[in-house]
């Protein structure tokens, strides 16, 4: 694919992020309606309105592209290019007024994530990752930081309540194997991993809307991402995600996550 196409897609993604951010910032100022989805997770009218706004931009600029969004039915999932969107990643922090929630936009070609955008409406930060290019934060290149071993790593995970009886051991082992832990950072903590402020992040119950946008962002900053078996992440990957700024920490983390 010519580079120019990818640039046009990136421009579209930034338009989507900007429009989503305007909606979310406005909505965050007041209470909103919440309902419970079939899988037990909460969703707000803001999630839906934001996804609709993003979908409208895709339909207008790239009518031949497919869309897989978290809140609405799929559109042309077999198209060559498919957008994967999570209008508000971190719905719980959003409900709680904690500004670590953001909009995730990914573009895949086949099974390969080409483009990822993490937009943080409350902090005014946007990360853009493109396959084969340097990741940018507000237009400035970012890099992950070197970390030689897991015992000196700063780790992050979102919410311990998402860990079931089979997974909680992995979380406990990682807490013991690392130096410090931060919780509840949602997509923001992975963006900060790409920026060299966090060394290793992992989550369970993560679906493609949660992680595909993170893949180009982290890889383009020099980091490593995979499922918990070390496999690459595509549209058919499972629900486990692990990312590290330094390959050595990623290798060690895979071993510790799978010890049980």
């Amino acid at each position: 694919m010519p580079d120019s196409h990818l640039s046009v897609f990136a421009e579209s993604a930034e338009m989507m992020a900007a429009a989503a951010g305007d909606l979310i910032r406005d909505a965050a100022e007041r209470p909103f309606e919440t309902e419970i989805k079939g899988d037990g997770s909460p969703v707000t009218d803001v999630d839906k309105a934001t996804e609709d706004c993003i979908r409208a931009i895709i339909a207008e600029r790239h009518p031949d592209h497919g869309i897989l969004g978290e809140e609405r039915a799929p559109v042309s999932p077999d198209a060559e290019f498919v957008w994967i969107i999570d209008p508000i990643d971190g719905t719980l922090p959003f409900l709680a007024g904690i500004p670590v929630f953001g909009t995730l936009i990914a573009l895949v070609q086949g099974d390969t994530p080409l483009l990822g955008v993490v937009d943080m409406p409350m902090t005014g930060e946007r990360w853009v990752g493109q396959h084969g290019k340097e990741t940018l934060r507000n237009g400035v290149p970012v890099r992950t930081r070197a970390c030689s071993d897991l015992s000196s790593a700063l780790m992050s995970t979102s919410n311990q309540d998402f860990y079931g009886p089979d997974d909680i051991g992995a979380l406990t082992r990682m807490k013991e194997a690392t130096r410090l832990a931060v919780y509840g950072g949602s997509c923001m903590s992975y963006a900060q991993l790409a920026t060299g402020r966090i060394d290793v992040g992992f989550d369970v119950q993560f679906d493609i809307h949660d992680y595909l946008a993170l893949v180009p962002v982290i890889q383009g900053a020099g980091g490593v991402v995979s499922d918990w078996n070390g496999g690459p992440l595509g549209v058919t990957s499972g629900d486990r995600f692990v990312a590290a700024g330094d390959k050595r920490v990623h290798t060690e983390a895979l071993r510790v996550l799978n010890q049980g």
Partner: protein
Amino acid sequence: MHDLALFVKVGHELADIGRKMARAAFVDGAAFQTKSDGSPVTEVDQAIEKAMRKVISDRFPEHGILGEEYGNSDLDSEFVWVIDPIDGTKSFATGLPTFGCLISLCHNNVPVIGIVELPVAEQRCVGVVGQPTTFNGKPVHCRPRTSLSECVMSLSGPEFYKETAPRPGFERLWPQSEWNVYGGGCVAYASLARGFVDICLEGSNLSPFDFCAYVPVIEGAGGRITDWHGEALSLRAGPDTRARGVLASGDPGVHEQALRIIAE
């Protein structure tokens, strides 16, 4: 009580200092880097506290000051300012916006002004005894809840609750909420005052600079805030000024339910 309005004004000046200096280090400073031991962060903490202390001692030389970084002076004064220049240092160091400046004024040990300043989002929650709590200048109120099962609960991180023996109420309380959020830190207390969060649980072994600011903020929004035994939080809470844990609730009835569960 002397000139409460003047004290509030100076509280805002302190929060302005915190916002400006924390943002400079966090948002605007592209070169901001944290070593793995977090040391540059401590420098920012110290610089903010130093600047705030200077304002206080210039304006009110007779007031006492208790700060996280530089200890205490004149704690027996009628008025004591209680400052945590950056609450949530780990968040600050990792680039997460879940940190803030906590500023409080205590009168005869009782917190009468509380300010939760959130520099990244440019949000400020202000509580003044006898007045409605404000968020960015607008009055806010906690929301009513009839039971714990309707509540959004904010918890720091699992390991903070494991230091007290016997196992504290945390493990009994956390499964009873509708949802828990982790790592929200001081932001969650502002959210509680705004009616976005219903319970904040924090422990253990906390110092006055960890909680004094929350007292006027939560009470002025109609909520309740005590230690885990239901006792009032003050500058002299508990032996050697430490409290074993903080429980804040938007709904007073829910607060009673939560205290009973912790005490079981």
